[in-house]
């Protein structure tokens, strides 16, 4: 199963490193990554494969949100189906 990790907020050092370390620890494999910086605003979207992760998506999503609070960013992990459903006919 694939999920989308979205990280937004004010740009700072080490964001990608921290998020990647967290995902690696949880057994999530990053399949795609893209990132933009608009002024001071940082936005990163990753597609991750969770088939080897031992934790449930709803638990990982909560942990992502907590990690986001620690590093002062907004971090979401959501099942990819929600975006496929809402943005394709």
């Amino acid at each position, binding site marked *: 199963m694939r999920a989308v990790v979205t990280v937004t907020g004010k740009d700072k050092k080490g964001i990608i490193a921290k998020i990647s370390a967290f995902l690696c620890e949880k057994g999530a494999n990053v399949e795609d990554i893209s990132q933009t910086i608009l002024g001071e605003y940082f936005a990163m979207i990753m597609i991750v494969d969770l088939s080897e992760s031992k934790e449930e998506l709803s638990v990982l999503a909560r942990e992502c949100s907590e990690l986001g609070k620690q590093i002062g960013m907004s971090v979401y992990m959501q099942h990819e189906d*929600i975006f496929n*459903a809402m943005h394709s006919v």
Partner: protein
Amino acid sequence: MFTHKDVLETIAMVEKEHLDIRTITMGISLLTCIRDTAKETARRVYDLVCKKAENIVKTASDLSGEYGIPIVNKRVSVTPVSLITAAFPEDAPLVGKALDDAAATLGIDFLGGYSALVHKSTADYERKFIRTIPEVLATTGRLCASVNVGSTKSGINMEAVKMLGETFKEAAFLTKDKDGIGAAKLVAFCNAVEDNPFMAGAFHGVGEADTVINVGVSGPGVVKHALEQIPDADLTEVAELIKRTAFKITRAGQLVAKEASKRLNAQFGIVDLSLAPTPAMGDSVAQILEEMGIQTVGGHGTTAALALLNDAVKKGGVMASSRVGGLSGAFIPVSEDIGMIKAAEKGAITLDKLEAMTCVCSVGLDMIAIPGDTPATTISAMIADEAAIGMINNKTTAVRIIPAPGKTVGDEVSFGGLLGRAPIMPVHECDSSKLINRGGNIPAPIHSFKN
């Protein structure tokens, strides 16, 4: 495949625009629970509801976590209780209590179906059942009641309309220490639907499968935000944008509904396309109408703007879901919509305008507080007016009105939570009792004879 913009748009809808799944409602048939006595039936009802819906709260929480979209309410609707207590209608409150207890055990906020369907005429057991409603609403917290008093096919049962006026008065009086909240849990319908996921009027129709998941989506804030991006567009463009937005919102509901029904071992019923407001700022249907160009909701043009909104939401939603149903239209409850509350406080919106608005949207005179000394026959006359609109226009209409005990125009009622607060609105003081006391039926309209 989705793009960066799509992902960020979805997140903004949830973070800033109050996108949510308003309710996951499990419809449960109680027909297998009928036993010889009310006590045995009540026990069976409690056990069945607790068993069927035991995972509804956890499943909703899991889905919310996985998809990143809040699921606000988890609810249950059941077979109209008047049917399963027909042999012992005076003891129907025992079943009502069992349902309320089951709702508390499950941790859900409302359970609907303390209901009777009397659109053609009132059977004796239904008459007795309806008389139990005020007491049951006063002694339970989560149970909701509804009565269908008319339909396009059968006309309007004016005996039931008269009873319902009295029922609203008594339900409010018996809960006078809480601003008459009993009446806020009661709905009088015309053309009630059997798969409505929204409270207080949800019940599980006898034509339904034994366990069904119906989902109500929401998102007035998302529609308003979208319209803010095109302040000078003409109304054709406005309608197109609402359609596109409704499509996205409904797709989220469809996904959640399908997944929830799979996990809860129930049939996927319908997605209800209603735009349902909450008292939160930015989650208001009234403010969409104001964004379209009416200074304050209730002004001239409100009905036209609402007609456009209601139709565009349906067109976008129908395309997005494999099965739509329920009420499917924009809701205009006064106490549950911050824009409506403000307009009512200013006197910009009146009962007459609200009645006109119900001709073009779902669902009716909803969550409106009126003076506590309003005669029961005047409330019945309001129900008759709404039922007539529903009957003639082939649509669902309803009345959920609160004659607030001891209060009058200038006062306010406050129920808290999703039920919100509302100023007392004036009603016409002329007497309608002769019409109501005539009884009988208003015959079905000629255009209902289609066979």
